[in-house]
């Protein structure tokens, strides 16, 4: 049944129909390998974006994408339709995987973060972009996990508070509080590095 629905669902996928992802997951759970390919093509870049914005590192972000999707493949047979949207679930898993990694990086200074091996012609702007993303990741690493997650979902992913509340399984008030505190913490951590990072009014 799901296999037959697959073609139609794929056609709807571009329209942002969340149910399409659940239907594809169901098809995968019923042994349809092509559903996994469609899901991976659709979801991996999204997870990559979220992970890269939190971690500031391509290789680490790729690892997170693989791990997040691995969890999706494993949960597929037990996925209950209508219980949660696949994207909501993925935001949660990815945020958790990222803060897990950030926690391990805690205490490692920016100078000690290895330069990426990427030897593309490094324009000054690209260097600064990269060091900014790394500085952000380093600053997020110093925040409590939940604050880092709330700030990143709100300000890096641009999600609305009710959606963040669903992802983090807390109230919207709690999201507001976490985001506000997170931003204060972030500001404190980044204080004194504004000139170096090339932002702000100084």
């Amino acid at each position: 049944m799901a296999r037959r629905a697959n073609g139609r669902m794929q056609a709807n996928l571009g329209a942002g129909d969340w149910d399409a992802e659940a239907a594809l997951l169901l098809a995968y759970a019923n042994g349809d390998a092509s559903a996994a390919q469609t899901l991976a093509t659709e979801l991996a870049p999204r997870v990559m974006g979220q992970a890269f914005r939190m971690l500031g590192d391509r290789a680490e972000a790729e690892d997170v994408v693989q791990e997040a999707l691995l969890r999706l493949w494993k949960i597929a047979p037990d996925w209950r339709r209508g219980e949660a949207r696949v994207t909501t679930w993925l935001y949660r898993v990815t945020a958790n995987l990222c803060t897990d990694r950030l926690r391990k990086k805690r205490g490692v200074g920016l100078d000690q973060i290895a330069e990426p091996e990427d030897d593309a012609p490094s324009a000054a702007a690209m260097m600064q972009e990269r060091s900014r993303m790394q500085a952000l990741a380093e600053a997020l690493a110093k925040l409590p996990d939940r604050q880092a997650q709330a700030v990143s979902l709100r300000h890096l992913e641009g999600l609305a508070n009710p959606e963040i509340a669903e992802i983090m399984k807390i109230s919207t008030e709690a999201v507001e509080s976490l985001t506000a505190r997170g931003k204060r913490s972030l500001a404190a951590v980044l204080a004194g590095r504004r000139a170096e990072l090339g932002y702000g009014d100084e």
Partner: protein
Amino acid sequence: MRRSWRDDAQNWGMEMSEQDKIDMAALDAFLDQAKHAPVPEISQAAMARILDDAQRHLPGPVAYEMPKPGWRDWIAALGGWPAMSGLMAAGVAGLWIGVAPSETMSDVMAGMMGESVSMSLFPEADIFDLEFEG
């Protein structure tokens, strides 16, 4: 006196000063830049690993054919292990009855098996061991 972000961090409960607002605006701009920073594409190698995982964990289609029953299935069908003990006791008892039948049993069995036996209403052998004195 200009208050730094660090001071603010220690006074989260306080209302925002003008400087805080400027600082927060700078932070917002920084976060906004990060939000729109180009994201590297996933390498083909990583994508291959992802699809490999998917293939490896691909659940099989739901099995409709019944598996051939093994001896465990038979036991389960007969009521599981608790039923087995009763069944074995009955088996042992049956074996014993077969090996060492009482004489009465052999008469009854002979009758059942078609051997002709003559029975009187008053059996010569008093099977209930009742002595009639009379």
